[in-house]
């Protein structure tokens, strides 16, 4: 067992970098019971826990950590589940440093309680226990109400709505475009960061509670949203279709072979298992010199994936400096450990191809930091005449995205904002009676926990609506 210092956090054991870049297994290995108790006992059990204000769904952090410290881990897991139905995922992917842990009183000393690690530990303990002792679901659903709810999209927001409403006795059907449920948790975030089994378990758990999953259904195509309400007999619809639609910069060479948008690259690898080609039929370009454009979680995931697919040199090309990287701190740290090169203050101008139309170089503009912009971050400005050319046989563009139009364009009367995201009120209701929405399709690309929080709010209002309706 490793302890950084007397007052420091208990470090989580991890696969060493030189080993993990050769596999897709999870990087952090999880706390054992003793490590968890030691870490839990560092919590001061504050009367006014500021950590809780930092959590978008206000998990009762001191309470669950107190239970872990006492060894009552199953109760701790149940406590978290009151506010967060996917603790195993959130413990791994929440940007804790700007949420719960960022607000922990110990953060000032640089040693906040490892809330995410403990959340992950409790969730793992509970599912392990359930697997061994065959414990049934935590809750038994309320008696059937006879009301039917359609959830469109099986991402974190949709799964939360489904779980909350099935427990209250409603008949819930989830429609998902892909052949697997989970949304970005399945096709976007890689296995080495969030094992697919965790999402699978949650989906199976919901199915056991009675949620029906209709996979391979693109709503807005085979069935429209209005038809769900008018023809298919649903009383309410929740839209959790995610952000979708990746952006490009509109510079020359973006459509060369070997230039991917991160969504495609990650979907091929995660959902279609291209890393296991040819056992799985979907191929992927394996580059030697890889440039990833962007500095968020998506860029880190793409870069670390490329590293695991034989790349010798992987560079993150980012137009600001390391301090402004929007990715989770842990991802940046892990990427650095894995030998990912950070080519900061650098922005692509053009992709150059070979005679076969495959990318071979990226011509970049060198930047410097200027005055702060509206967001308070220093704006990157081009240094006149300074350019760099990087070799690249694989480029992955991860610069964000736009609103997914398939459902929104075809649903009459649905109010959208100027960027085509769905407008909702404080209860998650859209402009069309009977239709609610939440997650990335409302906020634009955000986080798993925010999507789940939005699902929770909408579920509450849908429940109220269904009870009043008769």
């Amino acid at each position, binding site marked *: 067992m490793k302890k950084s210092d007397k007052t420091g956090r208990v470090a989580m054991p991890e696969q060493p970098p030189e080993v993990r870049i050769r596999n897709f297994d999870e990087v952090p290995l999880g706390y054992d019971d003793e490590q968890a108790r030691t870490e839990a006992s560092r919590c001061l059990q504050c009367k006014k826990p500021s950590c809780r204000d930092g959590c978008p769904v206000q998990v009762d952090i001191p309470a669950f950590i107190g239970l872990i410290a006492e060894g009552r881990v199953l109760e701790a897991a149940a406590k978290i589940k009151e506010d967060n139905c996917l603790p195993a995922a959130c413990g791994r992917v929440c940007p804790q440093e700007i949420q719960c842990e960022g607000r922990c009183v110990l953060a000032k000393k640089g040693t906040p309680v490892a809330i995410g690690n403990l959340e992950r530990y409790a969730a793992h303990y509970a599912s392990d226990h359930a697997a061994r002792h065959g414990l049934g679901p935590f809750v038994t659903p309320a008696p059937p109400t006879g009301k039917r709810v359609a959830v469109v999209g099986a991402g974190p927001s949709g799964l939360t709505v489904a779980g909350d409403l099935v427990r209250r006795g409603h008949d819930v059907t989830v429609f998902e475009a892909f*052949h697997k449920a989970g949304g970005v948790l399945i096709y976007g975030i890689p296995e080495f960061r969030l094992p697919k089994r965790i999402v699978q378990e949650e989906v199976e758990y919901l199915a056991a509670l009675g949620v029906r999953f209709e996979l391979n259904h693109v709503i807005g195509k*085979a069935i429209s949203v209005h038809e769900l309400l008018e023809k298919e007999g649903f009383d309410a619809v929740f839209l959790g279709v995610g952000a979708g639609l990746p952006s490009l910069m509109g510079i020359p060479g973006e459509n060369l072979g070997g230039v991917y948008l991160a969504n495609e690259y990650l979907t091929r690898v995660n959902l279609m298992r291209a890393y296991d080609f040819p056992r799985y039929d979907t191929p992927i370009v394996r580059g030697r010199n890889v440039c990833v454009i962007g500095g968020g979680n998506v860029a880190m995931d793409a870069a670390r994936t490329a590293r695991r697919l034989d790349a010798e040199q992987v560079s993150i090309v980012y137009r600001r400096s390391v301090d402004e990287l929007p990715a989770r701190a842990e991802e940046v740290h892990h990427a650095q450990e894995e030998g990912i090169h950070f080519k900061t203050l650098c922005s692509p101008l053009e992709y150059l191809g070979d005679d076969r139309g495959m990318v071979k170089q990226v011509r970049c503009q060198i930047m410097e930091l200027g005055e702060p912009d509206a967001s308070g971050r220093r704006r990157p400005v081009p240094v006149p005449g300074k350019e760099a050319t990087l070799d690249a046989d694989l480029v992955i563009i991860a610069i964000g995205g736009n609103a997914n139009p398939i459902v929104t364009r075809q649903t009459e009367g649905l109010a959208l904002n100027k960027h085509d995201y769905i407008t909702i009120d404080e209860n998650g209701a859209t402009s069309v009676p009977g239709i609610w929405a939440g997650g990335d399709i409302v906020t634009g690309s955000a986080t798993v926990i925010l999507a789940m929080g939005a699902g929770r709010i909408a579920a509450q209002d849908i429940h109220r609506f269904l009870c009043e309706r008769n």
Partner: protein
Amino acid sequence: MSTILKKTELASKIWQIEVEAPRIAEKALPGHFVVVMADAFGERVPLTIADFDRQAGTITLVMMVVGASSLKLSRLEEGDEFYALIGPLGHPSEIKPLDRVVMVAGGVGAAPIFPIARAYQQQGTEVVTVQGARSADLLFWTDRLASVSVEHVITTDDGSAGRRGLVTEPLAEQLAADSEKRIGGVYAIGPTPMMKFCAKTTEPFCVPTVVSLNSIMIDGTGMCGGCRVTVAKKTLFTCVDGPEFDGHQVDWDSLMSRQRTYHTQEGFAFGRMLAEPAPLNENILLRQNEEV
């Protein structure tokens, strides 16, 4: 659902597959496509809806075996189910009020072009069809296409049926003979080079030319960006902005180089699958336990 009801070999390596898909059949229009997966290990393959029967709740796909995934799909038998089948995707064809259209079908393109030709014929447009293939034994649906056409010209590369030569020759003749300018549009569906040369042929005549692009796809719903093409110098997504585009504006070289992206790997997978002795379903059973 998505059960294969009927499977027929129309020509060597070209299969007609009728699938139970009531929800897709109900909404299908000419020009729509579906995405299918043969099994849990499969690729997501886009295929045009070549016909549909709303009453029976079925759609018809016509597929040519060109590589590993189409080979795997062709090995599914009547009674089997696709692992995944989604649709109808893409924009349907815009059936414009025209006096006369020329439909050019190359190879397996005869199937996707049929419902479009039929829609034109049903609204009273005169349809001229030019159907090309490498040789006579690769022609199919000639009777269907003839039944909706006022004129039906066949070309083969080797002259074993119809005229010897390429589809672009009769196409050029049709346009040259059209002194009254009654031809308001040309559709070209087939292999990418054929579509490119059809568009080049019609360009001097300034006749609007619609092509159906077959870029490589994953989701088919606008999420991944893999199917992007350059049309009129803009980047568009074939699955949600197409698949039909103005052939005079398509950047053909970019499309073709993107289609070649996986050439080596796909070639390897094809060889491996051709050599794989066990029937597909046994493979699935064998491998199912490995699936996480």
